[in-house]
């Protein structure tokens, strides 16, 4: 990983007696898109709010390019673009008015401000709606306007809280493209519940559970794996099980018919072994049924976490 642009060091956050974040450590470098996963209430939004300088952490530090970020030091927030979960928009304003206002408050002036607004309008394909009232825009466009404001001052760090929530499939694809484009030369963290988003976008995935982050293997590995359920009639089941065991040790078998030697087999295996297994089952006996289930990404994550927990 390149020099970290954003670092959360040993961050603690407590709401009343409930400790949301405990010893949270996270570094994100240039060009990285980190997916922040976790169940509801696990502290994803809190993590992003602390990183954005909106919330205080009770302990620990947030560093941007090595410098501390503090809620009471507004200048330290200049390099952060933040899109909260509920897109913060002023409905009675036109898109261009909204962006011009935020460019001014971010300290951009005159031609620089105009150029910045034009740039984000073009980057996010908003030129056609720049004169429209925000309140009249569709959800997809509203999401884009929200992302546009986060990108206005070309921040080094982009924090997106569930940016694809509630979008239709077409808008989802657009939003992914936008985030991918926006991630160039930036550090991006985005939180989501949608595993497909993570697999489509992220270079690294972390899971927030019990206040701690757990690293999940690279998303390219995620689609691998599944469960095979087969019913076979086999006279020499022990030999078959030994052969299968060499391919996949995690096998469960159950004899369902004493007289007929019919067995139900269930085993977890990677997708590239499925062909070999089915061939083995066909040649070793009579294959009565064969069912292959790919593990959903969600189940895969839960399984990985379960394994890590053990």
């Amino acid at each position, binding site marked *: 990983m390149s020099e970290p642009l954003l670092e959360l060091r040993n961050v603690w956050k407590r709401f009343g007696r409930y400790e949301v974040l405990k010893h949270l450590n996270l570094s994100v470098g240039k060009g990285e898109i980190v997916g922040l996963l976790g169940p509801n209430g696990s502290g994803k939004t809190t993590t992003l709010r602390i990183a954005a*300088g*909106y919330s205080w952490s009770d302990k620990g530090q947030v560093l941007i390019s090595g410098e501390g970020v503090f809620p009471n030091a507004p200048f330290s927030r200049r390099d952060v673009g933040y899109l909260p979960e509920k897109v913060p928009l002023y409905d009675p304003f036109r898109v261009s008015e909204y962006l011009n206002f935020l460019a001014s408050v971010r*300290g951009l002036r005159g031609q620089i401000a105009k150029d910045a607004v034009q740039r984000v309008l073009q980057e996010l394909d908003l030129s056609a709606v720049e004169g429209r009232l925000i309140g009249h825009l569709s959800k997809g466009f509203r999401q884009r306007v929200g992302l546009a404001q986060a990108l206005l001052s070309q921040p080094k760090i982009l924090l997106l809280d569930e940016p694809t929530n509630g979008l239709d499939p077409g808008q989802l694809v657009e939003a992914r493209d936008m985030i991918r484009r926006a991630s160039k030369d930036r550090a991006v963290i985005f939180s989501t519940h949608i595993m497909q988003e993570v697999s489509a976008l992220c270079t690294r995935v972390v899971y927030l559970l019990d206040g701690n982050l757990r690293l999940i293997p690279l998303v390219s590995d995620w689609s691998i794996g599944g469960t095979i359920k087969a019913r076979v009639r086999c006279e020499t089941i022990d030999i078959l099980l030994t052969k299968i065991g060499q391919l996949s040790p995690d096998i469960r078998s159950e004899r369902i018919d004493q007289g007929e030697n019919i067995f139900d087999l269930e085993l977890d295996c990677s997708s590239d072994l499925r062909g070999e297994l089915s061939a083995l089952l066909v040649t070793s006996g009579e294959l009565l049924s064969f069912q292959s289930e790919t593990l959903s990404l969600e189940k895969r994550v839960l399984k990985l976490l379960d394994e890590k927990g053990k």
Partner: protein
Amino acid sequence: MGLYQFTALIKHELKYYFVTPIAYVVIAVFWSASGFFFSFNQLFVSAINMVSAFHNMSLLLMLMIPFLSMRTFAEERQNNTLELLMTLPISEAALVWAKYLALMTIVLLMLLGSAVAVAILSYFGDPDYGPIVGGYIGIFLLAASFSGIGVLMSSISTNQIVAAALTWFCLLLMWFADYGASLFPSSWLVYFFQYISFSVHYLDLIRGVLTRGTLIYFISVIFLTLVVSVQILRVKRS
């Protein structure tokens, strides 16, 4: 944070008042009602001063200002735009002051519009301008205090209606605070209740009498409410 960013915040706030009907409605009601009361007073009482007009204005301001102030923070919180504003490179103090100054600009506009009454008085008579100017300064200070309380109540609320209701409650409480003095005869609390009461200070104001004590009182209310608003925003960050 620079002056440019601060000015941008004020402009945005002012613009917001005028892209929604709230400012138009409040200003129109204030001008109409204060004009009506002034005309009524001139036609039936034949007074050539503004004492009654200022009295009516102060009550109208107490009624109308919460409608303007309720949105300052409560609406931002409701729309989630406060989270955005507070992650921008601006301080809470700048945010509070920008919103307050924008609100005071609207209040100033309301009072300037009501000054048509002075022109009418000048046309038909020869009023004493000293108490009128003093009275306007006083009414402006009174409105500035009301606005400060409105901003404070909005900063603690997540709902605009609640913010307005809390503001009315506080304004009424402070208006009639001197009544509390009768509950504690011959005690330092008598002075306290009389000192914090708007109505005690306001009686001087509408006659155009501006004493140092009154000035300190109103400026203290304005600063105290705004400083507390800033602190509330900071606390609510967590």
